């Protein structure tokens, strides 16, 4: 059964239909052709699909697309201002926190949500914020460096 979805993504009103079984991630990637959010485990375990839903980071792969109705969603595509990267994106580049890059959009969304919650995150805040993101290239120290750098710049 198809469901009509009226939502706001990166500040823009979006209206489209999707099967009721569609996840928010499939809706973003396949219906709207927004490929920034990554499909990886598809079971909520790796965080590659993280988006910000009404101000909170969530895994879009285990969220129903239908739940986007009436919600405010921010994806990785919504962070840069034209050619100017968001400070969190720039910090990941400046510290070399990106290797293959597959986990990066998810991390950046978790960190964006963290820095929206608190301007001066503690080590514990940082660990909590990215505990649901896995990087298989395992450059975790540089990711933490990037978070500190982004926090200092914001």
């Amino acid at each position, binding site marked *: 059964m198809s469901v009509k979805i009226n939502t706001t993504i990166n500040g823009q009103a979006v209206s489209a239909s999707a099967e009721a079984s569609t996840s928010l991630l499939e809706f973003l990637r396949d219906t709207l052709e927004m490929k920034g959010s990554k499909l990886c485990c598809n079971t*909520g375990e790796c965080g590659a699909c993280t988006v910000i839903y009404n101000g909170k980071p969530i895994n879009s792969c285990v969220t129903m697309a*239908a739940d986007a109705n009436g919600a405010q969603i921010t994806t990785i595509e919504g962070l840069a201002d034209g050619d100017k990267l968001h400070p969190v994106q720039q910090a990941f580049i400046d510290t070399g926190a990106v290797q293959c890059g597959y986990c990066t959009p998810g991390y950046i969304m978790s960190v964006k949500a963290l820095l929206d919650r608190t301007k001066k995150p503690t080590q514990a805040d940082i660990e909590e914020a990215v505990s649901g993101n896995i990087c298989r290239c395992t450059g975790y120290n540089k990711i933490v460096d990037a978070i500190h750098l982004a926090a200092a710049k914001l």
Partner: protein
Amino acid sequence: MEYFEPKSIGDALSLLSKHGAEAKVIAGGTDVMVDIKFKEEPGALVNIKKIPSLAGITERGGSLRIGALTTIRDIETSALVREKLPVLWDACRQFASLQVRNTATIGGNICRASPSGESLTPLLVLEANAILAFSDGERSEPFKTFFQGPGKSAAGAKGLLTEVDIPIPPAGSKGVYLKHAVRGAMDIAMVGVAVMLTPDAGKNNAQDVRIGLGAVGPTPLRAPKTEALLKGKALTAALIKEAGALAATEASPITDQRSSAENRRWIVEALTRRGLEQTWKAATGKEVA
């Protein structure tokens, strides 16, 4: 797959009656979406998130009432829960990841009725009740009898959990939830142990001790023999050792990909001891003699 967004409890119950075993309730969806992607789609999906007043935490006549749609994150960040129900708070903060906690609801955790569900042993030791709605009326069911097996609960296929009613433990009572898993975050418990201890007025003895064991039986369990052993006594190292060993015999674990049954018993023993030491110290201000 048919899809519904009922706007009231009554509408949701009629849909569940009409569609019978074909119907599946969905709340946060962190369990149901994975089932849809990797197992099978139900005939009809009933999304209960549009029903107003099913979320929220309120204090009412000596109880905390937590609505079924309240997220694990909202419980974890509630000052009221942290102060009055530390054992539940402790479990919620060790639940999955921030992303999952932002979506997962307590109602979903309870109705999934997984023996490892993080909120279940705290609810057992808090002697809480499930408030269930059926088409012929509402009923309050103690969690002691609510859980009937893996995935099986008194809500059945036609009931809706609306709230949890949790009696606030006496002031001075302390609770902890200890989780053993391979990773700190994002992992299902190999064993989870909830301990609640209420001291007597002079803080010399444990007036009441309650122990909940998770992931070591077909449902979350209490450890009644161990509790009886400890009641009314001052906790000593020897008594705590005996209690840990007894609790291990009260568990009925299985061997699966996460752990062997034997290993699970050892962990029950260790976590029970640790939980007793921590709650004794917190409740009496004394080290274990």
